[in-house]
């Protein structure tokens, strides 16, 4: 069997599994649909959270990003895991105690204000659509590279699958398919990593192989070899940082707070039965996430080393077959500038012009081929990439559908609606959202990559402070919270829009305010939110007594 046949088998098997689970676990009530009737065990919920959290970006793009960024890649590693500490210690247990269905639910009830609720609904929908478009795109790329169908057909197939289990099963179906998807994606990520670690360093554990001596007989450590090769070819030293320290600090903080404020992550903690389980479930989620996240930087270093040694200074006629395969997709480009037929792959500090362009997204997908692993591993990686993209897409679609059916229709427009109607509306909205996100996947707005920064910035500068203050400050009132959210969102989105859309040519360190990049500005937006909220709350009347009691109530686990 060749790569394509293996990929087909792996993908078909995994899809059959998801569909089977969806049929077995379909939703019967709105409680089932929104929060799986709050009956999910913490370990299962942790696994589902991990799958929902790790998107196509984590699975496909992150290791590649790190391979090209070196130490600076740690902003993603620390930022996207450190947020779970904030979630577990500051948000998850209290939101579980509050025990309703959505994030706007909490904001609306705690701040006794429909304005606050609607601001929250808009943020939730915007953040989720931003994200889901990227997932659908990832699905399309995997299909087109490995199964030889067009990107558009790939997106349509992906839409069909998500439609089936998200619309039918709601949160219940999503939870159990996400568990299966986690198993597929982690297996697919670890298998090639272990093989490559063994080949390069003789150590089967990638996290240790990362810091081990190479097996080529040189007695040199992998990371020292990378630093040396980098210097030789004019790239930055792998274990050194290129970004300013302040910027790295702010980006990491924005990603952490953004992670803790993302609605599709928070809502997962409504699905466990008890408060202590919400705490431990965040721990399990992070454990399952860390399994991939601590492997990713090792994969990045292995891939970088393989790439520099196999491609650089190789005659073009003798390149391995993976090189020509990916060249066909346009994601690898070779331009023989000096006409010597040899690939010169060099960095900005070298005198020799660089002749090779490599898209960062192919690192994980091409890794098994680069390392010469058997074809079934490549098929497995394709199925893993799809699992990562589909599981995240489903969680996001649910946020969109519950925001509209529950927060907008039930809580704002028509409170008299029956549960059966609400469930129907939730299903229809989920269906419509699948179609819109599929459309966005086929016709991606040019700015999908850019708006991810916006999504995290917005979550960090809006939800995170509003929820945190709602729990830890009894004095915080609706005026403070609403003006804080609006100030944070406005500042952050204007800053990002200015550098990403209005004046992309100015998007360099010397023009940034205080040297903070658009990726890191959410941290300042968050600080602004806190500041405005405190000042406004200090000059307006405290929240009503029943709200202060509500805060007292969510701080203790037992119902009184």
């Amino acid at each position: 069997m060749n790569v394509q046949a293996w990929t087909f088998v792996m993908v078909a098997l995994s899809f059959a599994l998801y569909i089977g689970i969806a049929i077995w676990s379909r939703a019967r009530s709105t409680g089932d649909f929104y929060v799986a009737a709050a009956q999910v065990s913490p370990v299962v919920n942790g696994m589902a959270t991990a799958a929902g959290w790790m998107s196509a970006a984590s699975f496909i793009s992150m290791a590649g990003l790190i391979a090209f960024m070196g130490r600076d890649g740690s902003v993603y590693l620390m930022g996207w895991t450190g947020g779970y500490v904030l979630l577990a210690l500051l948000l998850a247990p209290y939101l579980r105690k509050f025990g309703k269905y959505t994030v706007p639910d909490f904001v609306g009830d705690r701040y006794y204000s429909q304005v606050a609720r609607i601001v929250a609904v808009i943020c939730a929908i915007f953040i989720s659509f931003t994200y889901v478009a990227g997932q659908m795109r990832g699905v399309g790329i995997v299909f087109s590279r490995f199964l030889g169908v067009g990107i558009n057909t790939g997106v349509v197939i992906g839409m069909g699958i998500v439609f089936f289990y998200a619309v039918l099963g709601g949160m219940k179906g999503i939870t159990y398919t996400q568990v299966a998807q986690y198993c597929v994606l982690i297996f697919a990520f670890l298998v090639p990593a272990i093989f490559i670690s063994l080949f390069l360093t003789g150590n089967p554990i990638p996290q240790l192989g990362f810091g081990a001596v190479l097996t080529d007989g040189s007695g040199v450590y992998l990371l020292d070899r990378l630093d040396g090769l980098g210097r030789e070819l004019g790239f930055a030293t792998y274990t050194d940082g290129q970004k300013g320290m302040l910027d790295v600090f702010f980006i990491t903080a924005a990603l952490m707070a953004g992670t803790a404020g993302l609605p599709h992550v928070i809502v997962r903690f409504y699905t466990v039965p008890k408060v202590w389980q919400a705490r431990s479930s965040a721990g399990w989620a992070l454990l399952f996430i860390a399994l991939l996240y601590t492997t990713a930087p090792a994969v990045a270093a292995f891939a970088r080393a393989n790439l520099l040694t196999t491609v650089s200074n190789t005659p073009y006629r003798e390149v391995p077959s993976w090189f020509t395969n990916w060249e066909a997709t346009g994601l690898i480009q070779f331009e023989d500038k000096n006409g010597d037929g040899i690939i010169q792959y060099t960095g900005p500090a070298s005198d020799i012009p660089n002749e090779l362009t490599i898209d960062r997204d192919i690192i994980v997908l091409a890794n098994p081929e680069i390392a010469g692993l058997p074809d079934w591993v490549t098929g497995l990686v394709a199925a893993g990439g799809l699992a990562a993209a589909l599981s995240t897409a489903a969680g996001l679609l649910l946020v969109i559908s519950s925001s509209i059916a529950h927060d907008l229709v039930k809580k704002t427009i028509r409170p008299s609606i029956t549960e059966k109607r609400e469930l129907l509306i939730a299903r229809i909205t989920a269906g419509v959202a699948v179609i819109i996100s599929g459309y966005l996947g086929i016709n991606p707005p040019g700015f999908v990559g850019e708006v991810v920064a916006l999504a995290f910035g917005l979550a960090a500068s809006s939800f995170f402070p509003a929820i945190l203050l709602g729990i830890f400050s009894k004095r915080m009132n609706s005026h403070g919270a609403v003006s804080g959210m609006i100030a944070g969102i406005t500042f952050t989105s204007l800053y990002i829009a200015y550098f990403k859309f209005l004046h992309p040519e100015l998007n360099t360190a010397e023009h940034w305010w205080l040297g903070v990049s658009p990726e890191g500005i959410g941290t300042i937006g968050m600080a602004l939110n806190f500041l405005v909220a405190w000042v406004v709350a200090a000059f307006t009347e405290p929240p009503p007594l029943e709200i202060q009691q509500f805060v007292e109530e969510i701080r203790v686990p037992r119902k009184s």
Partner: protein
Amino acid sequence: MQSSGEKREYWKRNLTYVGALLAIWFLVSFGFGILLVEPLNRVRIGGFKLGFWFAQQGSMYVFVILIFVYVRLMNRLDRAYDVHERDEQEDAT
């Protein structure tokens, strides 16, 4: 249900735990992985420079441990102040 004084005490203990654990959280990530990365890089453990290791490995291990420590501390605290959730079938904590 317990008095409001006891509730306040419970909340204060919780805040102490959260504060202490977040201090460690800050130290290993923002401290060792970002602010102190260069001086720590002068120390080597095997093939790793220590600052680099904290930035790409160590901080994440500590994060996982921190959450489970918090879970244990709070489970004990909930019981000590008798605010844990009771159930028909006793939960395994």
